[in-house]
Structures are given as C-alpha cells and as structure tokens.
C-alpha cells in the first residue's frame, strides 16, 4: 500500500488555518449576533476546522475510495443522530401543551 507523504509545509499551513479558526471562534463569541446566529457561526467555523483535520491531518484526501466511503457512512450516521434528535426538538411546539 503506497503511503502519500504530506510535506511539513502543508501541516504548518493547516495548523495556522486551525489557529485562525480558533481565534475567529473566540472573536465571534464576543459579538452578539441577532437570532440564533451565534451558534450557527460557531458551528460553521468548527465544521470547517474539522474538515481540514480530516482531509489533511487524517490523510483522507490522499486515501482510497474505500476510506471515503467509511468517512461518508460515519457522517451519514451522525446525520441520523441529528435528524431524529431534531424530529423531537423541532416538533415540540406543534402541539398545544394545554390539556383539559
């Protein structure tokens, strides 16, 4: 199995990107966005950072299609967790809690 060698330069670049992401998260936490944007902004930055980690630090970008399938199925399973949990949270207000 051939191993792709990632250059130190790439590692350092990604590391710097992650540091910038962390700084942005801290910065965004001090700004009061309207509606629920604070959570959305923080999660977006986190997802971007995680994507860099998975692609470069975990070498998925240079890996076989089988590895991509594994990553996709893990994401799919996380999708199940989110979707069914939100089936609770998003429908709680649909019914009036008043009972006779």
């Amino acid at each position, binding site marked *: 199995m051939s191993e792709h060698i990632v250059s130190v330069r790439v590692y350092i670049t990604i590391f710097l990107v992650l540091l910038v992401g962390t700084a942005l998260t801290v910065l965004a936490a001090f700004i009061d966005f309207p509606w629920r944007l604070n959570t959305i902004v923080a999660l977006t930055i986190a997802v971007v950072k995680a994507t860099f980690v998975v692609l470069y630090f975990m070498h998925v970008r240079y890996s076989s299609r089988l590895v991509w399938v594994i990553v996709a*199925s*893990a994401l799919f*399973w996380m999708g*199940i*967790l989110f979707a*069914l*949990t939100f*089936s*609770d*949270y*998003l*429908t*709680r207000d*649909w*019914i009036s809690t008043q009972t006779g």
Partner: protein
Amino acid sequence: MRPIESFEVPAPPRVNYINAQYGLKSWLLTKDHKRIALLYLGSITFFFFIGGLYALMIRLELLTPQGDLLQSTTYNKVFTQHGIIMIFFFLIPSIPATLGNFLIPMMIGAKDLAFPRINLLSWYIYLLGGVITIYALLAGGVDTGWTFYTPFSTTFSNSYVVATGLGIFINGFSSILTGLNFIVTIHTMRAPGMTWFRMPLFLWSHYATSLIMILGTPVVAITILLLAFERVARVGIFDPALGGDPVLFQHLFWFYSHPAVYIMVLPSMGVISELIANFSRKNIFGYSFVAFSSLAIAVFGFLVWGHHLFVTSQSVYAGMIFSFLSFAVAIPSAIKVFNWTATLYRSSISYDTPMLYALGFIGLFTVGGMTGLFLASLATDVHLSDTYFVVAHFHYIMVGGALMGYLGGLHYWWPKIAGRMYPEGWGRFSALIIFVGFNLTFLPQFIAGYLGMPRRYHAYPPEFQVFNVLSTAGASILGFGMLIPAIYFVWSMRYGKHAESNPWHLPGLEWRTQSPPPTENFEVTPIVTWEAYEFAPREETEVVGKFRPELERI
C-alpha cells in the same frame, strides 16, 4: 473416493495453542487470538461474578417489603453497579471478545485476526477501564442508575460519577478496537473459496455487531465527556439550571445504548444460528434472510432510541416516529425466529446441552421481544414505564437472549477451546435448572410491574411481596444453575474426556483442525469448496467418519 482409513480420528497432537509456550509472560504478551479470547474469558467471568453478587443483594433486599437489609442510598448504588458491571464489563464483551475472538479467524480459515497487537491492546484497555470502575465502586460507588440521567448525575449525586464514567469511557475503546479488528479480518482474510455467502451466520452477526460498536460507541464516549464537563466545570449542557436540556442527554445516551442492546444480542443470535443448524443437521432455512436480518437489526437498531423517552418532554410527533420504527425492528428479529423454527421442521435434532440453550433462547427471546412491543406502544408505555415490567422485559433479552447464547456457545465450542469434553449429563441438568430458575425469577416481575410495582425502590407495598418472594427463589435457583457449569468447566480442563477434532461431526472450518488448535490454526491454508451447513446424511457420516468424503479438502 479416498479410503475410509484416512478419516479416522488422529491421535491427540502434542503441540497446540495452550501448550505451545509456558509462563505468565507468554500469556500476557501473546498475540494469539485464541489466548486473548481466554484472557477475556477469565476477565469477563470475574466481572460476571461481581455483577452477580450485586444481583444477589438486590434480590435479598426485595424479599421483604420493608427496606430492612440495605439503606435506600446503598440500594441505589447496588442496582446501579449491578447494571454497569453486567452491561459494560460482561454483556458487551461477552460473546464477541471470547467466542468471536477465538472463532472468527478459524471460521474463515485465517491464522489470526488482522491486527493481533491491537487485539491484545483491546484486552489491556478493557482491564484498565475495569480497574478504574472497580476503584470507583470501592471508593464509594455510584448511585445514578446505569443510565447516568441528568441533571441528577451532573448536579445532585454525591457519588463517584466521573470516575465510573472514566472507566466506561476507556472500556469503550476496547469495544471499538475489537469491532475494527473483526470488520477488517472478515473483509480481507477469508480463505480461498470462503465467499461472503459461504460464511457461517456467526460471522454475519459479528460483522453487524462490529458496525454498531464502531458507529455507536464514540457517541456514548462523547456523551460521558460532556457529562463530566458539566459536573466538574459547570458548563451548561444538560442541567436546565445552567441553560441545558436534560432530554438531550437521554437522546445522546440512548443513541448508543439502545444499539448496545443489539451488541449484546446479535452475537448471541449468531451462536444460535450455528447451534440450530448444526444440532438439527440441516442447512439453515433462508440463509440470506438470516444473514441480512443481522445487518437490518444493526441499522434499524440506530433508529429507535426515542422509545426510551416516551414519558419525557420529547415531542409526541417524534414519539410516533420512534414507536413506528421500534415496531419495524421487530421484523428482522422475527425473520430470525421464524427461520430457526423452520430449520427445525423435519430435521434430525439432537438434544445436546448447546441445543437445549438454543431452544431456550428461542422461547425466551420471543417473550422478551414481544413484551418490548408493549413498551414501544406510546400509550401502554405510559402505564408500564419505570415498572418491573421493563426490568423483566430487558432481562428476558439480556439474560434469556444474550446469556443463553453465550452459555450455549461456550458448551458447543468448549471441546475446541479446551480440547476436553464437558460432562454432558451435568450440562443438560444445569441448562434445565438455569431455564427454570430464570423464568421463576423474571416471569413474576412482569405481573408485579403490570400491577404497578416501580423499579429502583428498596421498599415496596406488601401486596407485591408474593411476586418478589417467587423472584428471589428463582434467582437462587438461577445462581445455583450458573455455578454448576462454572465448576465443571474448570474440572473438565484437567479431567474431562479428550475431545476429538470434530466431536459434533460438522462441516465448519473450525472443526477441521485439531482440538485444541495449533497456534497458527491450520497446518495448511484451507480451500473452501462447500457451502455453510452442508451436511452429509447421518448414516454416511457415522460410517465414514466425519464429513462427506468429497468435502474433505484439508
């Protein structure tokens, strides 16, 4: 056709995996999957013994309606620790880490698992998790229930929640590594000719189990971490007083812990498929249906967790979805039960000890599964939730299902593992005692629960005493029944009759090597040219020897 003499039983070979090397170091640093399976066997038996002691204390306390043996706080710790030890340190590793570890490479014709060192590592991680959990129990114990529900666990409980959680967190990695090893091994190390649809069903069920281990365990690990963050650093995640949501904990916890039920019962179903086919000497009815139903259970099992939340503030609409999906997961389970029953039809059944366990499993699992449907119905669950009905239901699945399969499998493969036979008469006797004791323990709990006896209380209204006396009597019989195999397995290691390489006269690969097997399992890599469960007529095997001659390739 080869001459008959070539099928006679060879003299017991001198070198096998047990006597290949001697000394403690040869065991503690072994990379042999069979030795690691035995290390696991010893460790989980130890934990089973501790969990059993807690069960004994629970049953003794409940013998009388008054809380006269244990204080309420002590009782809370006792049932919590019974659950934690039995689930995380016995049931989850039970069949995969012992029988699975021992048999998966042998059943596919491989020399070992794909990652032998990781296999050994998983055992050490299991031990580390176990030691930390035992430390927590000795230091003062934990009283949250094995489910660690918030905000009690994060805010109010004064017991060792974080230490216990750390033990379970660490133990989870052992489970993940075992699952990873099994998946890679089954994908990449099958012997020539061992196609997916020639694999014994034991392997399909372990493949499905491994998927759950890998996909589910990280979620419970993260959940425990979040719990620890909230408890230690007061970060508001689950506690409403800190701006959190306690139901979120239940979502995250059950996302793993419901599939974990299938981690316990799927391997057992794999064992039962082997036992039913082999002791009725008939190809399993609907092989591919049984195989795919394992995968279906693994996938559907992830979609039903919300049925644990019917009496919380979970949205009723989510409740409807989860109720429907919970009924759906009964379908693949039913496929298995019906196919096993159909396999028995007009077959040549022999009632050896493993088969007694398998037949017991079918009945008990069906009772456990059907009562699960009561609990998956939105309205009846309101009545039954948090009563002894629930306790009886999950014990029918976990003891009646998972433990019966484990004991059946242990008897069935014992000749291969130890190279000695267990005493058949005692085996059948204890299987019967366990079956009777089990039912006497848990059937009355269904009635007590239906009538309204709540779970997790150390004192109860006197009208429930008759059910509790029956239950405690049953538990004593059950405990006695468990001691018998514990004694004769140890006895048989030294005094049991020497086992032939194929004492049951079966076609599976694990029976085509000596008992106990050599370290490398097979002298020559086998070439598989037969389907799983391809039996010769009984007369032929008895006259000729072990298998149909044309199947003999090794």
